């Protein structure tokens, strides 16, 4: 029985069969994509994958021990899959992913409450990287007037305690601090709102992270029974009595505001910097607009494993190719 198991799972027929099954599986995923099933249901992806990948690893493992692979290059290439698998397992078990949203000038201390989401709820202290930073400036650049970013840098100083190091957070990562990789995944405008309670005289200043980018997008905030819908005109110009944007850069921005109270529209107009509108017993004014950046902070102990696995795959292939060439020349 055991011998039969070994001979079946280590067989050459299974090797070829699994490659055909692999090609069919990924073709099936392509078809699902063409049918606009994006992403397809979990069972549609993982069940067939498990059916293929389990015998694949069994086949490779048995072939490694039964010396089906005659050349060092072949052994190295196929062993590379196991190293990658170990790296992926480590990632699944110990990878930390956290998201924070910062406006210009804001400080991130790396505490639980500084993250808006993170994946390791139970092991936060153990797995979260020790990262703190101050987001000094956000620099967006566009290709002409199009929504085509050619630069979006988050200039930071770290650690937040001393601010002695400078760095740049970009979309495609690069910056690593204490083993944590940082990249940004969201960007937008954050209007600064000043609220003054007319009765008590209490004043509250709030920078509100909203989805108001690109200019013209509308988002709202709630203030008691009031819903305040906003649109930003970042670089406004009036053309034939209609507000337009010259560019997406912040040049004397204004807000178009629409307020409802219990669902009934009560105000609609344009709010310039310093202008006040009265909402019940509250005066609301707008003092400026900042940029915000959503930053992903990740620490992945499996990353090195996957990289070593890839190197093993490539080294194995190269060794096999070079040896074959030498053999043929001889």
């Amino acid at each position, binding site marked *: 029985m055991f011998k039969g198991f070994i001979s079946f799972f280590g067989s*050459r027929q299974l*090797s*070829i069969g699994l*490659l*055909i099954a*692999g*090609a069919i599986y*990924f*073709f099936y*995923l*392509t078809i699902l*994509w*063409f049918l*606009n099933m*994006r*992403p397809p249901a979990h069972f549609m*992806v993982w069940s067939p994958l498990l059916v293929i990948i389990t015998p694949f690893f069994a086949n490779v493992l048995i072939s490694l021990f039964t010396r089906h692979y005659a050349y060092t290059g*072949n052994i190295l290439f196929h062993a590379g899959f196991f190293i990658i698998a170990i790296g*992926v397992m480590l990632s699944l078990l110990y990878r930390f*992913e956290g998201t924070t949203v910062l406006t210009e000038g804001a400080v991130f201390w790396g505490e639980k409450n500084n993250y808006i989401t993170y994946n390791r709820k139970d092991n936060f202290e153990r797995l979260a990287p020790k990262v703190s930073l101050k987001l000094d400036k956000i620099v967006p650049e566009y*290709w002409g007037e199009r929504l*085509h*970013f*050619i*630069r*979006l840098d988050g200039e930071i100083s770290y650690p937040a305690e001393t601010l002695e190091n400078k760095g740049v957070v*970009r*979309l*495609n*990562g*690069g910056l690593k601090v204490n083993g944590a*990789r940082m*990249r940004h995944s969201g960007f937008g405008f954050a209007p600064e709102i000043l609220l003054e309670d007319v009765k008590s005289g209490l004043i509250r200043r709030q920078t509100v992270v909203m989805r108001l980018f690109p200019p013209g997008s509308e988002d709202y905030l709630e203030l008691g029974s009031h819903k305040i819908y906003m649109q930003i005109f970042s670089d406004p110009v009036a053309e034939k009595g209609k507000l337009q944007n010259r560019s997406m850069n912040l040049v004397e921005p204004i807000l178009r505001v629409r307020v409802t109270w219990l669902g009934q529209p009560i105000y609609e107009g344009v709010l310039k910097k310093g202008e006040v509108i009265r909402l019940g017993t509250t005066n609301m004014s707008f003092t400026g607009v900042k940029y915000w950046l959503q930053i*992903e902070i*990740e620490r*992945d102990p499996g*990353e090195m494993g*996957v*990289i070593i696995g*890839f190197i093993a*795959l*490539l080294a194995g*292939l*190269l060794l*096999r*190719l070079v040896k*074959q*060439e030498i053999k*043929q020349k001889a």
Partner: protein
Amino acid sequence: MNYKETAVLYLVCVLTFILSGFLLFSKNISRRLYLLTIIAILCIEGAYIGIRWFDTGHPPIFGTFEATLCASWMLILFSVLIDRKAQFARIVIPIAALTLFYGLNFDKTGKPLVISEQSYWVYFHALFAWIAYGFYIFSFAGAVTILVNQTTPTPLFTKEGERGGVDLFTYQTLLWGFFAQTIMFALGSYYSIRLHGSWWVWDPVEYLFAVSWCLYAIPIHGRILYGWGPQRIAWLILLGMVGTILFYWGLIYFPWATYHIFDTELKIH
């Protein structure tokens, strides 16, 4: 693109088109003339790529036009490097010409790279994609030669193009293509973790990579494990190539967006 650059581009197209015509319809084309012409095309197209690179500030990897430019140039470069005797020129040069002509249908405006593409990892990822494409096209040409010679009594090409030599050449180019494709995947996967935070993104381009990787691995394993003959290997290479070309170049016509940017006019990243 100014008129000088347009003139250079169309000169490349005309030269490739004329050479393809000669190769397809003339029985005897001198090797010297062939070599001189492909070297001329290589230099002129290379100069055009260089000018475009200088103008846009990035290597030509953005959009279908730039992709076809690189792909066709890579085929011409491979022809100069590994096919000086024009054994496979009747297949490879027309494919280079078709690739180039296909690209002319797309927007040729030089655009700056979007921030997700601004990385040396992407540049090398694209470079190895085109190297793999070059090897696979030669492997495809070898496969066609094997299959045509099977039914044609007289060799279609030269003496060096006899079965044994072509068989070996086809297999070797398949292996080198597989190697380049694996490097391309490793680079892309590493870049994916920097960009998306995951090694693998459920995206059609990655599915199609995996399909073609598995398809090309089948003849490699078949030859090593079972000693499959040249015909069977050739059919499998043909299948792999047809699938790769149709799906890779045809992907942009499907309505859903992919994380990979092919053509900004048709697909939104």
